[in-house]
């Protein structure tokens, strides 16, 4: 159980990072990005396939993959920013459903439908305490999760850029009127989230079932975690992601609960939201 829970911490870190990215996007650019993990998947697949089929050196492949991840994210950002600047969060987010479909099917065409083998970037055991093994991936993921959410918090709360970003989030038109470069900052957010998520998927892909669909669907437990913080609170998104990973890891040690494991994120989100939103009887405040 404990070993499983510790092992789950690695994937929990992934959930947490993607959840933090999704929370930032929801707040700063008003999009729930369903293609968030899909972008990372595409970058990671491109990197692996460049290294394998074109015999490119691994670091070069990774670099190209990263740039592609950023570019894809920016492209989606430009589309929503250009055509749906004033639309509702739902309408803007629905576009990313189309993007997710596009990315997954494009990766089927380019890289095939089979799981891909990745050269591990981080591997091996970090240390073992009393028979419980902690892998390096776990350490890296948890550290990265803390770094991303802590960094995001510092950026937003303590820097001028953060203040500008929050101004854009609250009143985009007013922010533009007082001279904040809305478009470039918005695109910057998209680029940063594309970068972070591609790095994370690249690190975690070698330890996972790594087909395009399951990597892209990392977005589901991640959004479950982000929903814990109502797509508003970074801290809760972080905690939610780690917790979800730990629970799933612990449960996966019990073979009789094999089928239950996949339903945990869904059941948790639904129960939590029903409790949390119990007062949201109406769609509008008045």
């Amino acid at each position, binding site marked *: 159980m404990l070993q499983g829970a510790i092992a789950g911490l690695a994937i929990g870190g992934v959930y947490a990072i993607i959840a933090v990215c999704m929370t930032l996007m929801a707040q700063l650019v008003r999009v*729930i990005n*369903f293609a968030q993990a899909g972008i990372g998947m595409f970058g990671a697949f491109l990197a692996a396939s460049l290294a394998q089929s074109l015999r490119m050196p691994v670091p070069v492949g990774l670099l190209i993959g990263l740039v592609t991840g950023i570019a894809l994210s920016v492209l989606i950002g430009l*589309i*929503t920013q250009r*055509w*749906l600047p004033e*639309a*509702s*969060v*739902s*309408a803007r*987010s*629905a*576009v990313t*459903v*189309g*993007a*997710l*479909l*596009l*990315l*997954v*099917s*494009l990766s*089927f*065409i380019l890289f095939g439908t089979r799981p891909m083998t990745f050269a591990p970037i981080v591997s091996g055991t970090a240390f073992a305490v009393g028979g419980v093994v902690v892998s390096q991936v776990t350490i890296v993921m948890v550290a990265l999760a803390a770094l991303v959410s802590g960094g995001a918090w510092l950026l937003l709360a303590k820097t001028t850029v953060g203040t500008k970003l929050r101004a854009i989030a609250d009143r985009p038109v007013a922010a533009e009127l007082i001279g904040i470069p809305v478009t470039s900052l918005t695109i910057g957010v998209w680029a940063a989230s594309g970068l972070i998520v591609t790095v994370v998927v690249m690190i975690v892909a070698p330890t996972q079932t790594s087909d395009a*669909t399951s990597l892209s*669907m990392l*977005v*589901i437990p991640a*959004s*479950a975690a982000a*929903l814990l913080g109502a797509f508003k609170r970074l801290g809760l998104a972080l905690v939610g992601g780690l917790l979800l990973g730990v629970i799933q890891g612990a449960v996966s040690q019990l073979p009789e609960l*094999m*089928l239950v494991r*996949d*339903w945990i*994120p*869904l059941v948790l*989100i*639904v129960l939590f*939201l*029903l409790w949390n*939103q*119990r007062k*949201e*009887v*109406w*769609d*509008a405040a*008045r």
Partner: protein
Amino acid sequence: MPRASHPVTDAVPVAPAPRPALRGPSRVWVPAAVGVAGILVGVVVSLVLPSSLTFLAITSVIAMISLIGLGIVTGTAGMIVLSQLTFAAVGAWIVAWFNQIGVPGGFLLHLVVGALAAGAAGLLLGLPALRLRGVNLAVVTLGFAAAADLTLGKTQFPGTAAGLRIPRPAPFADDRGYFVLAVVVLVAVAVTVHYLQRSRLGSSWRAVAFSERGTAAVGSDVRTAKLTAFAVSAMIAGVAGGLIAGQVGTPQATSFTTLQSLALYVLSIVSGAHLIEMAVFGGILWVLIPELLKRFGVPQDWGFVIFGVLGIQALTTGSNLGQDIRGAIAKRRRRRSPAPESGLVPFTDAELGALGSVSVSHGEPVLELQDVSVSFGHVKALQHVDLVLRAGEIRGLIGPNGAGKSTLVDAVSGFLPQHDGAVSLAGSPLAGLAPDRRARLGLRRTFQQDRVPPSLTVGDYVRFVAHGGASEAEIASALEFFGCPPASARIADVDVGTRRVVEVAANLLAKPRVLVLDEPAAGLSHDEHIAFGQRLRRIPERFAAAVLIIEHDLDLVRAVCHSATVLNFGEVLATGTVDEVLANPEVSKAYMGEAELL
């Protein structure tokens, strides 16, 4: 007639232009006839189609069925549902399982049970939709699809491992026969959904997509509307899933993946699948695009890439094929026969003479507020408000901005259940009753914001609001009285001020005891203001409703109201006849500030 008089433009009363006939019972059979024709076309197609294409044609028809179902939740009721093929998998699973354990009744019965099971699953997943909206709901449905996908991948369908085939029913055993069966099912589903869309239930789906508060305020239960949309949609998906099971014999988890659900959602957006003909078109695209790609030697996965691009295009422009085509047709029709000049114009003196003078008589109290208080945190929005509205009375509720007028309306109509004090309608207390219950008991309200769903026609909206309480003749006469556009006009084509007049007329047709109007004249021109006032004055005698009206325009209040209550900072400042209240120096102080400051 003190203030509501106006220059006479035309002494001869003009007969109102004849209105287009309301949709009568004569056209009810048309969809059924189209359905029969559809089946005949299906039979012909099954005979002429090369056998190599028959299997694909079945796939296409099944996709049409799924899309019709999806159109109800995503198109009509406006919710993002990304798990349509999971509901289909439930239907397929039941059909496969019943076949494995040998449940009697045969394929068709299994299909029906599968549909019911899928409907139940839809109902279950619809429960979160009562609190979750928009993207949150999309996340939940996507999670449902992904979890079911993983589970199905592990368990597979019952009997699949043993290679057990699901037999098709007797006359439809070969592909051609099964195609005809699929077409018959498609027609049955399409005709049923067509009638549902035109029914009250269909109107409630459209209304809930636009505004939940607006839906509840006209006496429709928001929960019922949402859950039925989910259940009907899932049930139709279950039919499609059962048909897939019969089509392939041994259903595979790979036919029901999350990715395909996403593609189906995108396709429903691209085509505009809430319109049945567009769902049919979408079903054709579903097989045509991959098939064409195959013909040109392009891998079929490009099909979903194309769907993705089309989807992004449709979502960013907010348009879909069905809407575009219908819009173009409507535009052409309008150009050929321009809409009749409808409008709210003041009565001529001759018309006023024909209508006679307004009789005012007050009866028993119909609406009583005793000691009503509302606080939001530390803000006391209303404090110890007493108010009585008698039968036949038109009472103005006035006061400066922020005085608590709209809060009072919310408390009375049931949107603020936590208020203190008592509200009673015709002597019976309303405590604890939801807004839709209050509306059905005869307490109606309108909104300061536009809460009239633009996707309905004026006639459909009025019928929906009136709750079956008004005859077609009454509807036509009330619309004419208020100078509303004809019943066939689309609300989307009507300006916002006029929409609110339609809202007032529609609520009156529900024959309420009390109608509460929240700034009904906002957005009307000066002439329309006068004309609207003339109509409002006649509400008690014409519609037998007492009226409580919030209004900032004191001219309108003087012209229309018998009495007035003034709120200031949440408290009743004055109450009495309109003249008394407006002469009260405290009232002018509340409106204008202290005299010294002027």
